[in-house]
């Protein structure tokens, strides 16, 4: 990192701060009352913007009619949980949930199992073809949905895997596996190399070092990779919409769309379903969010 040299002319008088009596020095990172008020105002506004759409969805889900979203004022008088009861009892919600879980967990499992050793290898070893391999992993991150969709559709339909969980899992693995490998490389990079050296001195093979020493240490990293691939598979829309035909096999992402057809839009049920999906996922997200970003930008913050 190049530190730009600061040209330091005559000391610049700090603007908008009264110079006369020397006030008690504020610790760095603290501002005057006005600045603090402004910060609070901006943050509160931003929070409201972030929070409102979700809160609104929850509010609409309590209105019993499908057009309530157009005149929400009326919802106050007739609030009810009927929508939730209906979704849970009379729709395929649990089938969709099951499909979503099967597909996402399957993808996660394969993704993490297959990519862990690769993450370690690219973190610690330099072998001929290393750069090309890393480049290949990076390129798969930028695949637009469109690029694999048509060939995958043709290949899977020839194998009879359209409308099957396995087909969808295979498709998702094409993104989840390189993704996990990247994430885990970042995590392994943060584990000190001295540990490997100690293992080698004690006579472990590289694979032994990996399995016995590094893998147990890397559990949080594995968890992040697992969570990321789970979320990605859970929220994927394009492939799921196209490759699943039977409405009992829909994932939640596809099922939610099915409330709005050309002729009828059951928006009240849709809102309730959306809330039912959002609550557990967000709760889970909050449990792990601290680790998430370090996973993606781990190398970055070290410079």
């Amino acid at each position, binding site marked *: *990192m190049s530190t730009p040299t*600061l040209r*330091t002319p005559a000391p610049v008088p*700090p603007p908008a701060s009264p110079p006369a009596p020397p006030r008690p020095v504020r*610790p760095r*990172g603290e501002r005057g009352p006005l600045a603090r008020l402004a*910060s*609070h105002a901006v*943050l509160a506004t931003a929070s409201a913007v972030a929070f409102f*759409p*979700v809160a609104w*969805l929850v509010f609409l889900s309590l209105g019993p009619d499908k057009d309530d*979203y157009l005149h929400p004022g009326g919802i106050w008088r007739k609030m009810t949980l009927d929508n939730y009861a209906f979704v849970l009892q009379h729709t395929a919600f649990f089938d969709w949930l099951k499909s979503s879980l099967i597909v996402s967990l399957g993808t996660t499992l394969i993704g993490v199992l*297959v*990519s862990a050793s*690769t993450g370690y*290898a690219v973190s610690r*070893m*330099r*072998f001929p073809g290393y750069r090309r*391999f890393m480049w290949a*992993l*990076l390129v*798969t991150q*930028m695949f*637009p949905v469109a*690029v*694999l*969709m048509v*060939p995958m*559709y*043709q*290949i899977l339909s020839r194998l009879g895997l359209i409308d099957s969980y396995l087909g969808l899992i295979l498709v998702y693995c094409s993104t989840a*596996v390189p993704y996990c*490998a*990247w994430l885990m490389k970042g995590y392994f990079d943060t584990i000190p190399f001295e540990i490997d050296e100690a293992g*080698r001195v004690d006579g472990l093979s*590289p*694979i032994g070092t990996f399995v016995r020493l590094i893998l147990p240490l890397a559990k949080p990293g594995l968890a992040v990779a697992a969570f990321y691939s789970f979320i990605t598979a*859970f929220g994927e829309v*394009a492939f799921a919409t*196209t490759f699943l035909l039977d409405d009992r096999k829909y994932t*939640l*992402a596809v099922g939610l*769309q099915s409330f709005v057809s050309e002729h009828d839009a059951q928006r009240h049920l849709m809102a309730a379903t*959306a809330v039912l*999906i*959002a609550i557990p*996922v*967000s709760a889970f*997200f*909050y449990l792990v969010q601290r680790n998430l*970003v*370090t996973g*993606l*930008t781990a*190398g*970055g*913050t*070290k410079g």
Partner: protein
Amino acid sequence: MTVAIDRATGKRRGDRAPRPGPVSRLKHGYRKHWYAYAMIAPVAVVLGVLVLYPLAYGFYLTLTDANSLNSARTIGVNEIAATYKFIGLDNYADILWGPTAYDRFWSHFVWTIGWTAACVALHYGIGLALALLLDQKLRGRTFYRLVLILPWAVPTFVTVFGWRFMLADSGVVNSALDFLHLPTPAWLEDTFWQRTAAIMVNTWCGVPFMMVSLLGGLQSVDGALYEAAEMDGANAWQRFRHVTLPGLRSVSSTVVLLGVIWTFNQFAVIFLLFGNTAPEAQILVTWAYQLGFGQQPRDFAQSAAYGILLLAILIVFTSFYRRWLNRHEQQLAI
């Protein structure tokens, strides 16, 4: 940047110097690196089978006139063999400079670029501003932080439907605008407003990631640098310009690249917000999807050709980006 260390080799007793000659070099390389190759083998196999093969097959399809009428298919018990034929690079020529190339490709291309630039700029700008605010000592900042991450925590396919309710003709957004005696645009019908709505929703979805990443970056900037700058009489703006921004460089370059890739490929927001109704607001990815799966007959060949073109655009962009970073002596974190 981590130093290249090779832990695979170890030091065997009587380690021999590599002998000349390609065969023994190959043997030596194999012996030296077989651990590495064994460990990357699973991913390499998956990449080969699930990515490379479909990609090659997709590329082959772009050289044909395959659509859903002439591809191999099964109707009842009858298997109908594929009848599409090889037509060379015609698909690409047709997309890039065919008679309707402007309406179909270039207009969407321009919009996609505009969409990506606008979204990433907004993501980064707002994300950085919020990260700076959250980086101060402030009462309740944990609370703000948790609320501000909310759009990231809820799955996109859920919130986009929420936005659709809000942006509908007499939904809450327009009701509010009407209450303030402002014009009430037709968010989901009029092209310009469709595009605005799409950028708005995507910005809402994407800011939290930027914010959290940049916040992580800010917290790793050495506090002593700020003190030194303050000693030297730098004001707040100068400290931001000369300490904060350089400190954030490597995080910034990474999240901007990821942001560009993700926004360029953003499928869910536009697809779920408009479905098939807004031909002018479709970005290239959703447009390619419509060609291949949203119409009858499905035009597989053209759709695949769009996919290959999109991938090419991204690869070219990333290569230039990396080279630009290298010239400015920066490294990508990923």
